[in-house]
């Protein structure tokens, strides 16, 4: 009885603590100096991030949501480093929803390591300090005569050792130290060492449970047909044939919602098994009222972009000097376009919901669980405290699960049956009904001065903002300009960038590398165009506008991002050097370069891509060199994996990724029509790292933005300048 009480009371919810505070455990007053083993307990849990039980098992709770990016390894490594524990002895688990303060489960923007680094070091160091104090009390010596080493506390006088597991009861009763000393980074043993993923063996033996693998007692299965046009409504459904399919329990309908998630009106088939539900869905005969916005096409959208681009931007984003002084003489201009894109995670979207009385329980992957809970509460009529969330591992996310319309759908369906329901989106649903990466159109203009230098830079971005979807049309501050706004890193004296939002009736969302990827393609392509036009070396041209520019803040706010042109130049130089930019090239071989700053994750990357031209518009990628500067690297192998995979992700969208719309419906409906890069198309990739002592940056997205412009710049060197993605549309082929 006593055991259990202590165990439970030690653990407190941290959701009420203010931002940035240290984790605080529970202390039983007056029992601080018990000697070993006079008191029994189950475990020591000084914070929400770790627990040590009396057998010595160390569990580290991962607060960020894992979807392949490796936070389930990098974050525990940070804790383990300070805790002085061998990583092979560490067990990792998802931090249960609600055990962290609001917002801390949120996962996106390559922010996990950056935002948690110090906090997790503190968590490990606090636990270590308490274990040391506990051991010092046992030995009746000063804590300064003790040290932590490999899961044990060592008496430095006698060399006696006590295992952490044997100290948990004593440690659990100590007050949490107000301040702890963190290790000197030069003493790091684990951080900076390539470490295998914490769930590697489970993945390799098929034991891993993703959301789609979770089973709940009494669970039934559902698939849904949705209105093909966003914000349409259900008129009628004939489900006679569907209900005759063996296994079908019920056919239910649900209404769509507006912002933020734009759940489509739907009809769901609930069955004892997913196969029956899938078969029955095909037999539904549904009439929809598609509303008035059911004739839009991507062609018409790009026509609107083109027309609108001739007018002044809707909003000015960044202005410096006076571009008009150079707007007539020697002006160079070009326009670029990029399509809608789908996330297409390998694990199709799925979610489990169970409704009982005035409460509901949810199971599944969510990148922003707090927002999901708030929205489910609003849309489905549950008090927030009556919504229980069980977070799950995701088989890829890339921003897909920043959105959670599937969770609202699952609850709406579960409200109509007294059993837990697992909703699975079929692949056709996934490709047809996504929150798509916005399509954009860019007009760039360069003014050249009398000395043949780039003197003025204008960039008008026209897009279909995500914010129009999440906040409603006319949402303020909708500009998707990261990578092209005040953080524009080239030293050009006169700059004018602006944004125009165009509404369009398909849902939009955030996709890996978001605006920075979208804007790097035109910026890094156009810089190259200007260099070639001015007959300057594209590498030296860039460096001449980067190396002379000091770091600068991108705004007046205290937290405004800092841009470092020197680091942007650093990765570019490294990539150029490694590919042999100045060396003689083989016949028909061409190299393209591109560099950038993934500014809000404090990381920088460049690509140098060498192609061999095999015929008109036909090429082979011969070499890919990537250079990255992301400050201190927690898990080098994890970083490399992100850079390799990020390259593949970006190459898909450079070569062939495209979502098209006809009659306000997405045309593509699976992997045969929305094609992804395959094994035989993956070129070899080399990754080089700029090593420095900068604070850790994020690595999940930085490897994407320079892929398209580097490849397109190589093609431009070969005589073709792609200005529209994917390049397949313009007749390019590759082997």
């Amino acid at each position, binding site marked *: 009885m006593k055991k259990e009480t202590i165990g439970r009371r030690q653990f407190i919810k941290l959701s009420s603590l203010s931002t940035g505070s240290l984790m605080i455990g529970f202390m039983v007053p007056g029992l601080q100096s018990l000697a070993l083993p006079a008191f029994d307990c189950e475990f020591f849990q000084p914070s929400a991030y770790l627990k040590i039980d009396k057998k010595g098992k160390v569990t580290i709770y991962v607060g960020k949501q894992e979807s392949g990016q490796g936070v389930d390894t990098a974050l525990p490594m940070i804790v383990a480093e300070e805790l002085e524990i061998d990583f092979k002895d560490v067990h990792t688990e998802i931090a249960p929803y609600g055990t962290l303060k609001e917002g801390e489960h949120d996962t996106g923007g390559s922010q996990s390591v950056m935002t948690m680094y110090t906090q997790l070091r503190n968590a490990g160091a606090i636990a270590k300090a308490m274990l040391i104090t506990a051991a010092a009390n046992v030995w009746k010596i000063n804590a300064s005569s003790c040290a932590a080493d490999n899961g044990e506390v060592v008496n430095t006088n006698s060399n006696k050792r006590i295992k952490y597991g044997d100290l948990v009861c004593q440690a659990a009763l100590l007050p949490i130290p107000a301040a702890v000393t963190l290790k000197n980074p030069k003493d790091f043993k684990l951080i900076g060492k390539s470490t295998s993923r914490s769930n590697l063996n489970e993945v390799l033996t098929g034991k891993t449970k993703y959301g*789609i693998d979770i089973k709940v007692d009494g669970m039934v299965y559902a698939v849904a047909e949705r209105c093909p046009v966003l914000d349409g409504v259900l008129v009628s459904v004939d489900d006679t044939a569907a209900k005759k399919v063996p296994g079908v329990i019920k056919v239910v309908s649900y209404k769509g919602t507006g912002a933020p998630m734009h759940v489509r009106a739907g009809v769901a088939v609930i069955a004892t098994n997913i196969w029956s539900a899938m078969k029955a869905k095909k037999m539904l005969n549904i009439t929809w009222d598609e509303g008035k916005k059911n004739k839009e096409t991507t062609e018409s959208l790009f026509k609107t972009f083109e027309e609108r681009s001739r007018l002044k931007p809707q909003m000015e984003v960044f202005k410096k000097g006076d571009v008009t002084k150079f707007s007539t003489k020697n002006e160079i201009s070009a326009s670029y376009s990029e399509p809608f894109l789908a996330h297409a995670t390998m694990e199709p979207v799925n979610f489990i919901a169970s409704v009982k009385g005035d409460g509901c329980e949810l199971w599944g992957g969510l990148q922003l669980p707090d927002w999901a809970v708030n929205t489910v509460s609003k849309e489905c009529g549950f008090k927030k405290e009556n919504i229980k969330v069980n977070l799950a591992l995701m088989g890829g996310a890339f921003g897909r699960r920043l959105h959670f319309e599937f969770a609202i759908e699952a609850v709406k369906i579960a409200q109509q049956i007294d059993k837990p329901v697992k909703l699975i989106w079929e692949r056709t649903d996934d490709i047809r009904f996504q929150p798509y990466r916005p399509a954009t159109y860019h007009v760039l203009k360069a003014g050249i001065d009398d000395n043949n230098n780039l003197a003025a830079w204008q960039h008008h971005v026209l897009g279909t903002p995500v914010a129009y979807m999440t906040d409603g049309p006319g949402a303020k501050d909708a500009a998707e300009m990261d990578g092209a706004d005040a953080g524009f890193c080239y030293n050009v004296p006169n700059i004018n960038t602006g944004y125009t939002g165009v509404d369009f009736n398909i849902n939009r969302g955030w996709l890996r590398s978001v605006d920075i990827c979208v804007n790097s393609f035109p910026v890094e392509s156009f810089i190259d165009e200007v260099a070639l036009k001015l007959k300057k070396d594209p590498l030296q041209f860039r460096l001449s506008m980067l190396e002379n520019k000091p770091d600068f803040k991108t705004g007046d706010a205290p937290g405004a991002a800092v841009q470092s042109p020197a680091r942007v130049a650093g990765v570019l130089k490294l990539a150029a050097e490694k590919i042999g930019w100045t060396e003689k090239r083989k016949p028909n071989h061409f190299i393209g370069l591109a560099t950038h700053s993934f500014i809000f994750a404090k990381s920088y990357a460049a690509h140098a891509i060498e192609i061999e031209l095999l015929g008109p518009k036909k090429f082979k990628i011969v070499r890919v060199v990537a250079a990255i500067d992301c400050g201190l690297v927690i898990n080098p192998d994890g970083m490399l994996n992100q850079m390799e995979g990020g390259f593949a992700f970006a190459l898909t969208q450079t070569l062939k990724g495209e979502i098209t719309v006809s009659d306000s419906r997405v045309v593509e409906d699976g992997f045969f029509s929305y094609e992804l890069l395959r094994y*035989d198309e993956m070129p070899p990739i080399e990754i080089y790292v700029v090593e420095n002592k900068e604070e850790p940056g994020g690595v999940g997205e930085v490897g994407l933005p320079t892929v398209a412009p580097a490849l397109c710049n190589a093609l431009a060197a070969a005589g073709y300048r792609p200005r529209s993605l994917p390049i397949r549309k313009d007749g390019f082929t590759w082997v």
Partner: protein
Amino acid sequence: MPNFKLNINNKEYSVEAEADMPLLWVLRDILDLTGTKYGCGVASCGACTVIMDENAVFSCQRPVGACVNKKIITIEGLSEDGNHPVQKAWQKAKVPQCGYCQPGQMMRAAAMLGKNKKPTDETISSEMSNHLCRCGTYHRIKEAIHIAIEEINK
């Protein structure tokens, strides 16, 4: 409902299911062998790949009625404890990111190497191009297959 006797991972199972239910859903939802993944249902991604009578097949395309008297191996049965040369190679090359497609990838590689210990690069490429990995781990899959080839030819 009809009853089917299946041999999966060298074990006999008796399952009740509609004859047209794909093996994929029998494995996942009836037998709780969830290592075999649903990715597309139309033979376009390879996530559901299992080995049937020594061939890599898409389990989403095999109705359970057509799986009787076949020897079926899933990722759970590829080895006793993850020590198949392909699994060991995947471990060494630290292939997975999200890991979702990897059981299918490994089953394909295991079937290929089961028949041909020294496949050419062209064979490897055409076999493995049946699979999608959205995380983009192809670079490491290639490395892992070469590690496995070296191991089995020792």
